[in-house]
């Protein structure tokens, strides 16, 4: 383990954060140096994430603790950890990979996409700030730091949504999203305050140890309810989704993809809280069923609302909302099954090795986060290219783009098929795990999930037919293929989509299973890494 790997968790936050404040300065030198600087920061961040994940997945799987300002989590003679720390386990490492993929492609796509004369530096500054916040949420081992990073992402994300102040709708969206983000942040803060008042600590491992030892008190359960509501709101689960289509729809196209990664970071927080912070200490099956209800509503409402859209970006945005439901479904089924296994006295580690359907559902839900980030990212980027070429977002006014934009058309088809769960693309691999596992809990769940996927395919066919097919007579004369700077990021995502679809077994074994195990059985290791013992 070299110094770079050891310090990777803190560098993942520090590099984009310092980059964010450096961009306006470098931007004074002109567009070229600024793009080089942002490209460098994004590449270094992604490389660090790759390094962190590669090191973790090649290692023993024990959580890594990175402590700021000291070498030990516990000062000598104390039992309450007071240091600020990052804690990396399988799930965190997995999430950093997703974020790295989306932010890297988003950044490089933006260089060609963002052609406005002014404001580019501020745009990239907010983008890097958002990146730093997302990585912070995924790596932190402290509840209050989680809240701080959550608010950093909220402010930066809303800055990006409302960045184009000359567009009416973006301002409306910005206000709406900021209000709901702030409210969800305050719910989380109130829950953090309640947990602090009850246990006198803010460290996730310490709180989990306390709750595990004494069982969850009423105050803990109120805090859990607030966290569930706040984070489900930030993740865009129906019925708290009203901000999500506005945000994804009105943000600049490459940033919509990053916003999806932001929503996934909130989902990560939700899973971390349910599995690690509360774990088997509270009635898991109730939580699981709550997630399943959220999931069913999200899948169904997301897809049906996508069906009636005529604005291509808003259509994709509702598609993105519906995918959050699949992740919630997988994890919810996992929680319900885990509760019944624990009640039956079964050893969780054995059930993971025996591929119990609860564990498979969890694998599916987690794998789908990565797949969704890749294919919804691809779709948003392709949509950005389409909107730039046709000059409109109204599906009724565009058409015939396939004549001029062959590569964008291909990438759009790959993304659409993958998201709708058509083999051999990656969406099928993870959705199949979810269908298979949720069928064993209740056939009803998988029927709704499969039907919604089919409807989603219809939705994308509508978008595809509206934007790409038809005569080229109505095309604006300037409409042409997207520049290479936009095609390459799309190609990278398309390769990921196809690779994960063709070799799902390899990726499930190497990265998804450790991540799922970190949630399924990793609670004691997570606590033990900070408090010793265990």
């Amino acid at each position: 383990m070299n110094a770079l790997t050891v310090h990777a968790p803190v560098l993942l936050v520090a590099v984009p954060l310092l980059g964010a404040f450096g961009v306006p300065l470098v931007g004074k030198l002109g567009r070229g140096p600024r793009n080089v600087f942002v490209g460098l920061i994004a590449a270094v961040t992604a490389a660090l994430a790759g390094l962190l994940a590669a090191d973790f997945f090649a290692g023993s799987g024990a959580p890594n603790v990175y402590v700021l300002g000291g070498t030990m989590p516990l000062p000598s003679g104390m039992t309450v950890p007071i240091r600020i720390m990052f804690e990396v386990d399988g799930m965190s490492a997995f999430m950093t990979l997703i974020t790295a993929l989306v932010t890297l492609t988003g950044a490089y796509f933006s260089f060609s996409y963002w052609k406005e004369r002014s404001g580019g530096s501020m745009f990239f500054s907010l983008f890097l700030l958002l990146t730093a916040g997302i990585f912070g949420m995924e790596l932190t081992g402290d509840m209050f730091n989680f809240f701080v990073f959550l608010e950093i992402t909220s402010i930066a994300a809303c800055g990006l949504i409302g960045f184009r102040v000359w567009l009416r709708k973006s301002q409306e969206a910005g206000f709406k999203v900021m209000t709901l983000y702030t409210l969800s942040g305050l719910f989380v803060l109130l829950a953090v305050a309640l947990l602090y008042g009850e246990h006198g600590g803010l460290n996730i491992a310490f709180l989990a140890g306390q709750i595990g030892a004494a069982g969850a008190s009423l105050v803990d359960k109120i805090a859990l309810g607030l966290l569930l509501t706040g984070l489900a709101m930030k993740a865009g689960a129906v019925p708290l989704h009203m901000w999500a289509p506005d945000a994804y729809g009105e943000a600049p196209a490459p940033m919509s993809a990053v916003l999806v990664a932001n929503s996934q970071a909130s989902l990560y927080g939700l899973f971390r809280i349910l599995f690690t912070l509360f774990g088997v200490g509270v009635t898991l099956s109730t939580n699981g069923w709550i997630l399943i209800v959220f999931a069913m509503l999200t899948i169904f409402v997301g897809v049906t609302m996508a069906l009636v859209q005529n604005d291509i970006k808003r259509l994709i945005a509702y598609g993105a909302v519906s995918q959050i439901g699949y992740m919630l479904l997988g994890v919810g089924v996992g929680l319900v099954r885990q509760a019944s296994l624990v009640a039956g006295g079964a050893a969780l580690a054995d059930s993971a090795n025996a591929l119990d359907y609860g564990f498979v559902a969890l694998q599916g839900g987690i794998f789908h986060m990565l797949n969704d980030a890749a294919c919804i990212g691809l779709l948003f980027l392709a949509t950005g290219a389409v909107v730039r070429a046709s000059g409109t977002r109204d599906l009724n006014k565009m058409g015939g783009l396939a004549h001029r934009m062959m590569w964008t058309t291909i990438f759009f088809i790959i993304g659409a098929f993958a998201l709708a769960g058509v083999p051999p693309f990656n969406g099928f691999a993870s959705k199949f795990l979810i269908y298979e596992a949720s069928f064993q809990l209740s056939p009803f769940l998988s029927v709704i999930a499969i039907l919604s996927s089919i409807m989603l395919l219809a939705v994308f066919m509508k978008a595809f037919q509206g934007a790409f097919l038809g005569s080229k007579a109505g095309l604006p004369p300037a409409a042409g293929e997207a520049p290479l700077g936009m095609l390459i990021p799309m190609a990278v995502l398309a390769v990921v989509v196809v690779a994960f679809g063709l070799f799902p077994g390899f990726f499930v074994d190497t990265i998804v299973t450790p991540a799922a195990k970190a949630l399924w059985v990793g609670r004691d290791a997570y606590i033990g890494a900070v408090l010793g013992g265990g």
Partner: protein
Amino acid sequence: MNVGNFPFVIAALLVAFGLYALLFKRNLIKMVIGVSLVETGVNLFLVMLGYRSGGAAPIYTFATAGERMVLPTPQALTLTSIVIGLATTALLLSFAVFVHRHYGTLDVRKIKELRG
């Protein structure tokens, strides 16, 4: 002075008033005020958690031996939260300014291009 649970009641009331303003007020500025009220309520709650009657400031040389010292964590949290609150309020108000510039109104019933 012992104030009992009174400040907790005030904190809960502030949060409730803020949520009321968010849900039922039609003016964007009043909604921002609602968000601020919720935030103030949560901050007050945090401060109250850290309050110990008769506690000394957590500076080792100031407190006499055996005296109870106050853990400064909640105060630090509150300060952070106030700073974040300032940023969100400023951003919300600037969005309200731009919305007014585009739509000519602050009434949410008239600002509805993003529906469905």
